[in-house]
Every structure is written in C-alpha cells, then in structure tokens.
C-alpha cells in the first residue's frame, strides 16, 4: 500500500504530542514532591526519554517488533534500525518506529513515581536501561509485535497493558525494594507546587489525544472514535474522583486531575473498541477504583510515592478488563462480555494478570539486582538536603 500523506501527517503530529507527555509527567510529578526534589523529578523524565531514544534505536524496536521468537520476544533483525525504511503501509515504517519510541520513553518516565525523592541518578540510568529492555520491550512484543498475547486475541489498543500495567506494577515493585522515604508517615510531605502538577496534567490530557487517537495509525473514523472516548473517559474520571473525595472532605484539585489521568489510563486499552457510553462507565469506575486504591496504599503505609500504581497500575488493569466487557464489534470488530462474548473477557483477564505478574516480578528482580550491586538509594544526608542539590548540584531559590 502506498504512503498516505494525511495519515503520515497525523501520526507525525501524534508522535510530537506523545513526546510532550514525557515532560508532562515530569511536571506532574515535580509539583507533587517537596521543593528540594522538584528539579530532580523533571530531570528524571528527560533522562528517561533520552535513554529510551537511544536504546530503542539500537535494540529496543527490534526486541519489540522484530520477527517473533516463541511468542515471547522479537528477533534482532531490526537492530540499529536496519531495514526500517521510508516506505510502508499507509505510513512509513520509520514513522511507526518513532511513534512507538515515544510510548516507551513515556513509560519509563511514569515509573519514576516509585522512587521519587530518593533515587541515585546513576542507578536510575542503569536500572532504566535494564527495565525498558527486559520489561517494556517484551510486553510491547506480546501485545503488538506478534507475541503470545496478540495470538491469543488479547486487545490492547494504545497500551493499557504495555504502558500502564507495566509502569504501575513496576513502580510498586520498585517502591518495595527501594523502601520508604525518610520520615514517611511521620510528617506530611505535601505537594509544594500544585499549579505545576495541574499544568503537567493538562499537557498529559493534551498529549493523550495523540497517544490514543494516533494508535489507530491512520487519520480515519477509528482515530476519531478513539479521540472522543478518550476525552469522555477523562472527564468522567475527573468528576468521579472529585465526587468521591468530596464525600470525605474538600474536593482537591490534585484529586480531580488524578481522576482525569485515571480515566485516561483506563480508556487507553479500550479506546479503539468501545463507544462513548461505555467510556463514561469506564472513566467513572476508573476514578472511583483508583481513588480507593490510593487510599488503600496510604493506609497500608506503602510509599509508592506519586501513585503510579494506584492510577496507572490499577487503572490499566481495570481498562484491560473493561475492554473485554464493553468492546463492541461495531467499532473495533470484536464483541465483549455485554455483547455476548464472555470469551474475550477471559482472554483480557489472562493477558492483564500475566502482564501484571511479569512486570511486578521482573521489576522486583531488576531492582534488587541494581540495589545489591550499586545501590538504588542516595545516602540519608543526600536525601535530607534533597536530590536537586545532591544529584544535580542545583536548587530552587525561594
């Protein structure tokens, strides 16, 4: 099939939009930490993106999208982008490659939630390279590169399993290995710059249109449908979280934007398969579920600091299951539970739980490995003065 200029234009722009989500995550997280770690959070997002760019160019793309080896991983045939060219099916192969690259970069940035305010920069670089190679790339292969999940018929439109379950449950494992922040639970660690978090959230919402609609890989009706349900689910999630937190006190702006993100996460795997009414249900449930997960996390005294687990992990899990419930053949060609196809729900559940187990298990092992060799964590004094000064030699003047 020849290259279509409209499709190519659309995916080029979507790639740029998804790229902007990575600093968006940095700002989102940066506003939620204490002032002494703000620069560090934004810097980690940039470093994640830069690292993955290089890794993806050399091996990552090939591992994820190379010819299938046993359903588990891609072969090394696209090493160094060998054979990935300007021709392709509707859009150039190279464009597909870079569109997938920005997803991988974003996923590593989301993971930094688990190690906020206490990670050693050098260890993050090593860990990040290992993680994207051994967790992200296989998961991307399973779902999109012709791996076992794809053969089974599991649906993941834009990355509920690959991006959100992997980063959310990975962040949880990572937080368990690195341990709590000094003083966690003894005194409050309030977000110090909420407008910055709201700005980051806005960039995320904006970029998510590229993320989900672009996953149609063409400027067509499916992309438009994905765009619509993405926005609806985000709005429903924001209102649901706001409502739930209002019952317990004041509806914080932070809760509202978290609900928005929860809705966006949950609709991600389903965006190409569900209609707007289902998107409302998915978004509302995501808002409530992620809010409950966050309260559970806080009550348990788990320091998965910025709630990638509660929002991306649990939201991604719900979204993967919801795809099996609400999918309708009229949109994506596959029916779900409520349209009389319980089989799809079972497939979604298998895929989601295997991905969850894999992401958690492998992340845990990698984190332990890095921790035992070079140490994940900064010293107590470095942590006390903050990572901005201790890792970057910079600080924010009052």
């Amino acid at each position, binding site marked *: 099939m020849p290259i279509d200029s409209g499709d190519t234009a659309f995916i080029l722009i979507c790639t740029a939009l998804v790229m902007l989500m990575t600093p968006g995550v940095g700002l989102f997280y940066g506003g939620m930490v204490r002032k002494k770690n703000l620069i560090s959070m934004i810097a980690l997002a940039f470093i994640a993106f830069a690292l993955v760019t290089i890794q993806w160019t050399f091996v990552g793309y090939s591992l994820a999208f190379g010819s299938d080896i046993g359903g588990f991983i891609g072969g090394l045939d696209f090493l160094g982008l060998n054979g990935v060219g300007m021709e392709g099916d509707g859009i150039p192969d190279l464009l597909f490659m870079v569109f997938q690259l920005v997803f991988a970069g974003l996923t590593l940035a989301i993971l930094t939630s688990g190690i906020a305010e206490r990670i050693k920069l050098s260890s993050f670089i090593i860990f990040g390279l290992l993680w994207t190679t051994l967790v992200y790339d296989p998961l991307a292969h399973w779902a999109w590169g012709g791996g076992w999940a794809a053969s089974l018929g599991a649906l993941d439109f834009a990355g509920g399993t690959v991006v959100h379950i992997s980063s959310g449950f990975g962040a949880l494992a990572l937080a368990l290995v690195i341990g709590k922040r000094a003083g966690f639970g003894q*005194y409050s660690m309030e977000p110090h710059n909420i407008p910055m978090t709201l700005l980051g959230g806005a960039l995320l919402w904006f970029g998510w249109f590229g993320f989900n609609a672009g996953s149609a890989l063409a400027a067509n009706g499916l992309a438009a449908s994905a765009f619509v349900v993405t926005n609806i689910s985000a709005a429903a999630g924001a209102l649901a979280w706001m409502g739930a937190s209002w019952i317990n006190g004041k509806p914080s702006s932070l809760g509202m934007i978290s609900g928005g993100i929860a809705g966006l996460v949950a609709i991600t795997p389903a965006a190409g398969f569900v209609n707007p009414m289902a998107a409302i249900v998915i978004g509302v449930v995501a808002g409530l579920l992620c809010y409950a997960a966050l309260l559970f996390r806080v009550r348990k005294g788990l320091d998965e600091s910025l709630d990638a687990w509660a929002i991306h992990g649990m939201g991604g899990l719900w979204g993967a299951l919801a795809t099996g419930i609400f999918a309708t053949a009229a949109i994506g060609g596959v029916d779900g539970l409520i349209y009389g196809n319980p089989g799809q729900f079972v497939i979604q559940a298998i895929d989601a739980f295997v991905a969850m187990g894999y992401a958690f298990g492998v992340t845990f092992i990698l984190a332990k490995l890095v921790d035992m060799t070079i140490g994940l964590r900064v*010293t107590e004094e470095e942590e*006390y*003065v903050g990572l901005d*000064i201790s890792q970057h030699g910079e600080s924010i003047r009052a």
Partner: protein
Amino acid sequence: MKKIEAIFRPEKRDKVKTALAENGFFAMTVSDVRGRGAQKGIQLQYRGKRMKVDLIPKIKIEMVIRDDDVPKVIGTIRAAARTGKYGDGRKFVLPVDQSAMVRTDEFVSD
C-alpha cells in the same frame, strides 16, 4: 513581654504548630528561611570530592508572649521539633518593650 524566635526543621512545622495550639499559644508568624548552625552544614561525599551544603531550608516562627510563658513555649517547641540529630535548630528569646495593635488602639507595654 518577650519575643521568641524559633528556628527548626521544616518537616516539623505542623507538629510544632499543633503542640503550641494545644497549649494555648496560637498567635505566630511563620517564615521560610535558610540557615546554618555550628555543625557547619551537611557534607556530601561525591566521588572523592566533597561538597558542602551549608544553607539548609528551615522554618522560623516568631511569637510575642508574656514573660512567664517563656519556659512553657520553649519546652513545647523543643518536645515537638526534636529529632536528636544535628540541625534541629535553636530558639532565641528577646525582650519586647511595646506591642501595639493595628486594628484597635490597644497598646501594651511592660
């Protein structure tokens, strides 16, 4: 009347505020400051190079109270703000000669 200036760790702010309020001391002014004490800041080891972080963020609260409340306020702040490690901070007590309200014409002097 005395003025108390207490400088302590920022993360203890809420605890100190609550403890003072429970003992009936409510009025105060709070500022974000940076400071260093006799222990000369925090030394970080960095690849053999040493790096000194000397001005560390602290909280300063200022309260003007009656002379006989001084020991109680000092005790309360101490109990709430102490971790036992260097960098817990200091309190200074200064004499205040007069205190005048802005809203009313009230004028208190010793």
